[in-house]
């Protein structure tokens, strides 16, 4: 038993230490949940809220360790005291009732107040002992004659006539007598009992038996009316927006029910979702609204931490014409401008011509704003396929150096790019400086510098929207902040095709601004460097990378938390934040990979290693992080499609696919037009981006041609690190795919060489991507390539692979392959390519025949000019069936010149090196 307990103790130690280690490893242990173990079942006692009584629900919700209970209020007709509504009898005074008795006595009684009926009960003054009618002091004659004494008469006696009979009056009446001038009673009348003598001239409210309330000019009330304190307001109280209210007979609100977010919850806190007209949001130290520059206002509300006002909108005068602004639920203000505002950089034709004349490969791309980008590559020729193009052979270091020199003559910037493991020299257009907010550490550094000088700091934004922090002349250390960005900043961002996002803090200062743009993979390159940083610098980089890894991990969890919140509210924003979380996690993995690379090569790290690491760093910075901010804060069609799951059609635009896959945006993509494979990205499932690739049966080998691989040809890929893009399909896509299309492509290297057929088979006339890397391994297929220098190898020659989309290299932008799918024939696909020579006389080359005579020479001669004779499709379309049917041919060049031919490519184009008997060349 001792052993068991010892073992148990060891197990506990291991588990606990593992947990501690796991927490230390990330150092971002989530803060303890202050609501853990808190049960909200002790609501506050019912309390008065002015003249209303507030009642709390028995169960509440916990936030930040504090329980909040839903409450409802009910208006009290007679006020509230001690958490209960007052009774009528607490406030009303029942007026005494009085009457005049027959003998003139005034009798009165005090009515009592009935708390049940909330009314004064009537009482009857008693006239007991006062019912005798008083007789006049004069002697009433028995006859209707009068006797007078003295003075010539018989004495002074007046004789009155016989008085009338005394009527019997009802209890609520008294007897009134009428006498003549001699004091004789001439009449008796019964008059109603009224306390006329007690009436006071004050306005008096009273209700009758039906509850009708009325005001009387004095305190004397008609029978059946009872005095009340006041009549209720007869104007119906306004119900808060979004609420349902119940009213009493006097149109007073007696209860509210606010099911919508805009209702009032009467919890004493002006919550964000409460209407500004709610009681919680009015009064106190928090203003209902605050004034903003430009004359606009923003709504304020009380919060648990004080007062929060909506961010002020950007002054309309500061917005460029045609731009609008919107404020999202998180307080970020976005400025949306028309795409027509975007100013694209133009590419001078002479630059492209120079590129071609220097044996460079002109490459056009298209960015997210639809602007063409241009670069001239030297060496690293790649396949002609619009997707998965692969460099043929890496250029030598001398060739790279030579390429960078050539860039100067092109008046372009020489940079290095690593593609498919090759170091490629390329010339790019001059870049513009990009900037944004000054980072936190940098700001601290500036503040410390200024502080040392006894000065404060002042922040401003320049016309490009870049933040500048300088020391302020003021002696006090006060951080002066800008309230707005200059108008030019919006214009500049708009012209770049960006979306400027601004966030202000509680003091109205701009706390965040960014010109949101999609990351562009084509911008992932590095400048040439001459030496390796010293060991100390490399060590500091290693530390920074470790810190970055932790940062990305923390951000991934935080954004996942946000996604969980949105999921709980049913908001479609969950999808965008789930992606952002994935992107942070992918960035973390990439940083880890860089760190390991640095560690593994630390002893003999080369300049090329440093440049490769540098490119990875730039990729994270310029592509991944830009995408993250765009997905998180941006708006537009891309974001809507993510949120709504709708699918966009990229047509044949490879750059569209590139951008979409990095954020797992649902798209359809036809890399080779209508008659090629179809790629569809469907969305996220369990953290993986799902991509389906199908190949029409007519484009693949006939059933039975490859044992065990039969139509339909398709594969499904579950891409875990989709946000890093497709930089190398061999490692980024293919390993995550399943389906017979993968089999068809022969990426299944586990199969022995002899058992593979079709594409991956040596001797199949196809120099596929694997064989290209080591052409000598399969001279049967790659023989023609072996005898040529890389510069002599045409891209088309090496792209003759039955299933282009899945073979090597990056997805390449093919702006000229854009397809609106409006037509029926293949001619709707504009022919094109962007390489020279690529066997395709594209649009540019048609207009500038000298740019690429290799592609357009024959056509120009034959057609007599540009534009003619190009109706037939020239899109690269692999034809499996033809591939299997065409034998090796004798050596005849595609252009008719007698030279060695390497077989049939069957791509619709009579390429250089293709045999004249091939179907591609027969019709020319």
């Amino acid at each position, binding site marked *: 038993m001792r052993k068991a307990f010892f073992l148990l103790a060891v197990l506990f130690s291991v588990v606990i230490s593992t947990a501690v280690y796991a927490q230390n490893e990330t150092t971002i242990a989530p803060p303890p949940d202050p609501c853990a173990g808190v049960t909200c079942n002790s609501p506050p006692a019912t309390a008065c809220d002015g003249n209303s009584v507030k009642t709390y629900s028995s169960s509440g919700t916990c936030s930040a360790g504090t329980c909040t209970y839903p409450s409802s209020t009910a208006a009290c007709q007679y006020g509230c005291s001690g958490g209960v509504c007052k009774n009528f009898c607490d406030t009303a005074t029942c007026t005494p009732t009085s009457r005049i008795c027959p003998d003139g006595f005034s009798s009165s009684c005090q009515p009592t107040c009935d708390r049940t009926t909330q009314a004064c009960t009537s009482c009857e003054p008693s006239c007991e002992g006062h019912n005798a009618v008083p007789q006049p002091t004069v002697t009433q004659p028995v006859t209707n004659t009068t006797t007078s004494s003295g003075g010539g008469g018989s004495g002074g006696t007046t004789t009155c006539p016989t008085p009338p009979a005394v009527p019997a009056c009802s209890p609520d009446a008294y007897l009134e007598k009428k006498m003549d001038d001699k004091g004789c009673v001439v009449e008796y009348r019964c008059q109603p009992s009224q306390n006329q003598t007690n009436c006071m001239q004050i306005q008096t409210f009273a209700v009758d038996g039906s509850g009708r309330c009325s005001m009387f000019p004095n305190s004397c009330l008609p029978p059946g009316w009872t005095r009340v304190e006041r009549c209720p307001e007869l104007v119906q109280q306004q119900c808060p927006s979004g609420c349902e209210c119940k009213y009493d007979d006097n149109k007073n609100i007696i209860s509210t029910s606010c099911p919508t977010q805009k209702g009032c919850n009467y919890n004493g806190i002006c919550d964000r979702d409460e209407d500004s007209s709610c009681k919680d949001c009015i009064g106190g130290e928090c203003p209902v609204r605050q004034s903003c520059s430009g004359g606009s206002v923003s709504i304020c509300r009380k919060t648990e931490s004080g007062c929060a006002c909506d961010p002020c909108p950007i002054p309309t005068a500061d917005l460029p014409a045609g731009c609008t602004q919107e404020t999202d639920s998180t307080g970020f203000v976005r400025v949306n401008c028309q795409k027509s505002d975007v100013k694209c950089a133009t590419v001078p034709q002479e630059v492209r011509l120079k590129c071609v004349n220097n044996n460079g490969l002109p490459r056009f791309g298209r960015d997210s704003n639809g602007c063409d980008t241009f670069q001239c590559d030297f060496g690293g020729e790649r396949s002609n396929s619009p997707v998965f193009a692969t460099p043929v052979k890496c250029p030598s270091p001398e060739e790279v150096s030579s390429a960078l020199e050539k860039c100067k003559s092109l008046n372009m910037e020489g940079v290095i790019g690593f593609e498919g493991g090759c170091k490629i020299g390329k010339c790019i257009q001059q870049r513009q400086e990009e900037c944004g907010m000054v980072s936190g*550490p940098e700001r601290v550094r500036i503040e410390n510098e200024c502080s040392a000088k006894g000065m404060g700091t002042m922040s401003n934004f320049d016309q490009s929207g870049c933040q500048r922090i300088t020391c302020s002349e003021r002696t006090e250390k006060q951080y002066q902040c800008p309230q707005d960005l200059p108008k030019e900043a919006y214009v500049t961002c708009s012209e770049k095709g960006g979306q400027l996002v601004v*966030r202000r803090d509680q003091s109205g200062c701009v706390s965040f601004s960014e010109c949101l743009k999609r990351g562009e993979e084509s911008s992932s390159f590095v*400048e040439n460097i001459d030496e390796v940083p010293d060991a100390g610098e490399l060590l500091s980089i290693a530390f920074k990378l470790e810190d970055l890894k932790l940062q990305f991990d923390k951000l991934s969890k935080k954004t996942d938390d946000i996604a969980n919140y949105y999921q709980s509210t049913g908001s479609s924003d969950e999808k965008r934040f789930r992606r952002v979380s994935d992107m942070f996690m992918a960035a973390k993995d990439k940083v880890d990979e860089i760190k390991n690379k640095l560690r593994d090569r630390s002893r003999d790290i080369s300049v090329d290693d440093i440049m490769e690491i540098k490119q990875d760093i730039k990729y994270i910075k310029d592509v991944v992080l830009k995408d993250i901010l765009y997905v998180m804060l941006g708006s537009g069609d891309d974001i809507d499609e993510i949120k709504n799951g709708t699918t966009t059609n990229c047509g044949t635009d490879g750059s569209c696919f590139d951008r979409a896959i990095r954020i797992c945006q649902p798209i359809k993509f036809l890399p080779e037009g209508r008659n090629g494979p179809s790629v569809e990205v469907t969305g996220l499932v369990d953290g993986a981006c799902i991509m389906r690739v199908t190949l029409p049966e007519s484009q693949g080998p006939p059933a039975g041609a490859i044992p065990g691989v039969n139509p339909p040809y398709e594969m499904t890929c579950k891409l875990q690190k989709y946000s890093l893009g497709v930089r190398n399909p061999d490692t980024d896509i293919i390993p995550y795919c399943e389906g017979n299309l993968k089999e068809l492509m022969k990426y299944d290297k586990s199969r022995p060489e002899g058992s593979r057929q079709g594409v991956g088979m040596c001797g199949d006339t196809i120099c596929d991507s694997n064989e290209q890397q080591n052409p000598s391994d399969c001279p049967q297929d790659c023989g023609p390539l072996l005898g040529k220098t890389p510069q002599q190898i045409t891209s088309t020659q090496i792209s003759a692979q039955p299933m282009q989309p899945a073979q090597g290299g990056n997805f390449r932008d093919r702006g000229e392959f854009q397809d609106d799918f409006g037509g029926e024939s293949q001619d709707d696909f504009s022919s094109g390519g962007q390489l020279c020579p690529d066997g395709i006389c594209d649009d540019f080359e048609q207009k500038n025949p000298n740019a690429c005579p290799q592609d357009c020479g024959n056509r120009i001669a034959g057609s007599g000019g540009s534009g003619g004779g190009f109706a037939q499709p020239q899109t690269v379309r692999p034809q499996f069936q033809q591939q299997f049917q065409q034998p090796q041919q004798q050596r005849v060049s595609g252009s008719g010149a007698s030279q060695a031919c390497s077989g049939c490519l069957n791509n619709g184009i009579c390429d250089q090196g293709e045999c004249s008997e091939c179907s591609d060349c027969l019709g020319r």
Partner: protein
Amino acid sequence: MNKKAIVLIMVVLASMIFISGCTQSQSNIKNSEEVSRAVTNVSTDVQDVTSTLSDIDKVLGGTK
């Protein structure tokens, strides 16, 4: 080691697995105010991370 000890260990392990599953909190964010604060913080952090990457880029050399 007797059977009781093995059973006890199994129970403890199962309990720990269960508890670790229970502690997977759904979301620490409870309302839109906290979402707003979190998004702002993440955005600022991204800019700081970008700055760190730029620093590394400079140290690696070649930056204009």
